[in-house]
């Protein structure tokens, strides 16, 4: 009996083959939610290399947009990509929201892994936007932990040395030690440095404006929260060497000592 079942299965499967392969595919990192600007930017690229880009399949990466665009805006962006001559075939680099969006749009999500990392976090976009900014720089309330429990921070024990980069993907970063000149500490969440911050710190690397940077000795070269950065060619005297926190208030970086 099993023999005939196997034969039957073979017969059915003959209609189609599944093959896995790797194909290079261009990804469009959308940095402006204005469809006209997007179309114009892509048209330049298509005109420069038509043999490469005309009717080229592309994956649309929305992770650089903050806040997340709504469905209507995404439709307009996809139309802009098509109008420029490319064919959007999917969305890229999805967090849980992009995942939901891709389901609604009926488009595949390429590189789904972000959603897996994010599962425990689930901060709703409204939380990220309506930050309760303290007037004086008193510490804000801790980020609400998701239903699945808190997302554990990436811990780095020992200094981040010159030229090294530590990235806490989808999490906070805790450095027990210094961040040296020319070293980079990056996190999608907050950054805590129990030591001297002499190098660079980028919190909210995916655009979460509620993230903060904390350090016990401030001597940073550059700090950035959700892309809003400040370069310290000269350290402000009142903060140099002190314990400070840095946060974003109305898209302006604020620093205050503890």
């Amino acid at each position: 009996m099993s023999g005939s079942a196997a034969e039957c299965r073979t017969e059915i499967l003959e209609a189609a083959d599944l093959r896995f392969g790797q194909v290079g595919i261009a990804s469009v990192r959308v940095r402006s939610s204005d469809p006209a600007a997007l179309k114009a930017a892509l048209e330049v690229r298509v005109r420069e290399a038509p043999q490469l880009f005309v009717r080229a399949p592309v994956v649309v990466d929305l992770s650089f947009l903050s806040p997340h665009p709504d469905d209507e805006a995404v439709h307009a962006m996809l139309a802009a990509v098509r109008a420029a001559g490319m064919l959007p075939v999917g969305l890229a680099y999805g967090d849980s929201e992009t995942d939901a969006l891709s389901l609604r749009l009926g488009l595949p999500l390429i590189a789904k892994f972000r959603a897996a990392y994010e599962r425990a976090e689930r901060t709703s976009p409204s939380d990220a936007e309506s930050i309760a900014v303290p007037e004086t720089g008193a510490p804000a309330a801790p980020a609400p932990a998701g239903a699945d429990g808190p997302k554990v921070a990436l811990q780095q024990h020992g200094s981040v040395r010159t030229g090294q980069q530590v990235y806490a993907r989808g999490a906070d970063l805790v450095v027990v030690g210094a961040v040296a000149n020319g070293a980079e500490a990056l996190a999608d969440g907050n950054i805590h440095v129990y030591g001297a911050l002499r190098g660079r710190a980028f919190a909210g690397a995916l655009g979460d404006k509620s993230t903060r940077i904390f350090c016990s000795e401030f001597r940073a070269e550059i700090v950035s929260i959700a892309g809003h950065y400040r370069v310290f060619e000269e350290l402000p005297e009142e903060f140099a060497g002190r314990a400070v926190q840095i946060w974003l208030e109305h898209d302006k970086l604020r620093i205050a000592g503890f």
Partner: protein
Amino acid sequence: MSETLVITSGKGGVGKTTTSASLASGLAQRGHKTAVIDFDVGLRNLDLIMGCERRVVYDFVNVIQNEATLKQALIRDKRHDNLSVLAASQTRDKDALTQEGVGRVLDELKQDGFDYIVCDSPAGIEKGAHLAMYFSDRAVVVVNPEVSSVRDSDRILGLLSSKTRRAEQGEGPGPQHLLLTRYNPARVEAGEMMSVGDVEEILGIPVLGVIPESEQVLAASNSGVPVIHDAGSIAGQAYGDAVARLVGEDVPMRFLEAPKKGFFKRMFGT
């Protein structure tokens, strides 16, 4: 038990080769069988500082490429029977070094009963520097008390913690020591130079020694005698102290303060 030391810095011209020569000589002086290897393939300075440049027949690259045996290439120091120099090649470049070849030479030295193998790293963070540190058990980071040297040393310390065999095998970095060279206490006191404390705070590893700036260092290099042999010079004495600390002795730091001017100098100026 044999130990492989790397003398490194990132930045050039801070005194790696001078330090390699003096530490290796000091270890030999104390009775340890020691080899010192020049990893700066293409430039070849160690043999000059050690005063054996005219006796180089075969070099490190020859051994790695099986053109000579290790025995043929090792040059015995004229002052200490238990000290051997393995010179770099001047006619090749650093691509002639291979990880497998370097590992083989170091293993052979260990089998030959060398207590210490001192690897003199080239400047930079490229292949030569990488291979010099890759097999090391301990590192001596040579640093001048100025910002660019400190910055480069920090970079090297990062590489030591991630790009060595120990790190790759998950053993964590071996002991790391700072050796400050060209230290000028008078300029530190005048605020023109970083202090030992400043450098130690930034780099966060213990100081093995502080070598004061001294004219004797240049004189020693030019005459091919490692400065540690010049017992009359403060740099030589400071290297002697560093070697003592390297083998675990507790020796107080010296030469950290500018010499006090005597009565007459104070009265009449210098």
